[in-house]
């Protein structure tokens, strides 16, 4: 596998980054290179690299010396520790205080609970966005632990970006991917179809039954996409060769409408990207625009209700008249 850290890779241009700078061939080795002058990347990219390093043979992980002045960011986020590579640093020391969560691997429920307690103080967040971020991390990591079948669990990190007043989060696994999970109970012929189903409320890979099983309702990703939509945040979901990206809603459009079908949102898709074996989720949470979590829940409730009603209606049989 090869991955190149470009000058810039954020959710807005993540499709270009994946298409041009990620090569998943030869999964036993990992070669990392970087732009010589400046590297500015979303935490989801760091989480991807860290996750790849866990599936490669540790002796075959190579990271070229990082010359970019901004390389201290990679160090501070714990990338080189994670990769177990030495950087004979051109990277200058940098104070470690700041609003970020370095790369972290979570392999079980107990680790997640501890992490959730420790996480918010690290980001120094006011209450409103803290609620959303805690919710997002809990649900996404639990998804990984329950459904991904990845022996490496979830890899995540997050960073506060002052200029945009945004928390950016990346949560990644190298498990079976969304298509295989969804196809346990549904029929998705492509990765993109599987992503669409996974984002639809009430659809879970664990059953076809409306309302889910005792442990799964198929609502987690819909809740998270809704949090992103309402707060005008970016959200991306990449699995197999498909990427779904929720774009920011138009600020002029004051009326909030959640859609059960993610293809009715403002979105972009790609279905011919290099294959990611597992699932990658990236999200930006703007601290300027974080709506009341409660009002969001009202909307979610209404949309969920409509989605179930429509699915039930679609299953109704018509009377046959002769």
């Amino acid at each position, binding site marked *: 596998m090869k991955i190149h850290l470009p000058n810039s890779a954020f959710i807005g241009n993540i499709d270009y980054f994946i298409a041009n700078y990620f090569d998943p061939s030869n999964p036993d080795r990992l070669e990392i290179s970087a732009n010589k002058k400046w590297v500015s990347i979303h935490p989801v990219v760091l989480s991807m690299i860290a996750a790849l390093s866990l599936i490669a043979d540790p002796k075959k992980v190579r990271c070229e010396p990082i010359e970019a002045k901004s390389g201290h960011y990679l160090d501070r986020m714990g990338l080189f520790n994670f990769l177990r590579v030495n950087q004979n640093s051109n990277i200058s020391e940098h104070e470690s205080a700041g609003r970020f969560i370095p790369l972290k691997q979570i392999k079980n*429920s107990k680790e*997640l*609970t501890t992490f*959730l*307690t420790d996480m918010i103080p690290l980001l120094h967040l006011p209450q409103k966005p803290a*609620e959303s971020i*805690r*919710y997002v991390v*809990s*649900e996404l990591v*639990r998804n990984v632990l329950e459904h991904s079948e990845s022996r490496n669990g979830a890899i995540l990190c997050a960073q506060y970006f002052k200029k945009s007043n945004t928390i950016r989060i990346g949560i990644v696994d190298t498990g079976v991917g969304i298509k295989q999970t969804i196809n346990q109970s549904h029929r998705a012929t492509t990765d993109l179809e599987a992503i669409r189903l996974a984002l639809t409320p*009430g659809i879970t890979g664990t059953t076809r*039954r*409306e*309302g*889910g099983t*005792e*442990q*799964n*309702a198929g*609502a*987690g990703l819909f*809740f998270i996409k809704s949090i992103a939509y309402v707060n005008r945040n970016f959200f991306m979901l990449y699995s197999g060769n498909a990427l779904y990206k929720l774009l920011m809603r138009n600020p002029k459009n004051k009326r909030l409408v959640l859609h059960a079908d993610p293809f009715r949102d403002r979105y972009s898709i790609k279905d011919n990207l290099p294959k990611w074996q597992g699932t990658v989720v990236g999200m930006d949470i703007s601290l300027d625009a974080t709506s009341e*979590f*409660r009002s969001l*829940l*009202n909307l*979610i*409730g209404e949309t*969920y*209700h409509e989605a*179930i*009603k429509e699915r*039930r209606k679609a299953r109704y049989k018509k009377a046959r008249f002769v």
Partner: protein
Amino acid sequence: MAKTVTVKLLKIAGSFAENKDLARDLRREKITPAISKNQEVILDFGGVEATTQSFVHALISELIRVHGSDVLDLIIFKNCNETVRKIIDIVVDYMQQSD
């Protein structure tokens, strides 16, 4: 009326009640046996600041599926803040709409 069983969520699940494995265990070990005896169950969310849909689903969805919506006559949700209340409402609503 048979005796009432009170479950204090804060003690078990913390102020952010999100661990659905704990929710499932609570349901199986405390709530379901009480409901089976027609006992009233008080789920006391006092001190719980927030929860997730997954947690509440694991806590009560199976009860609604098995016993129907009448089971809600035996469950009292106590000391819920507005966020927790809304999440419980969502789960209760979609479970009653389900097949």
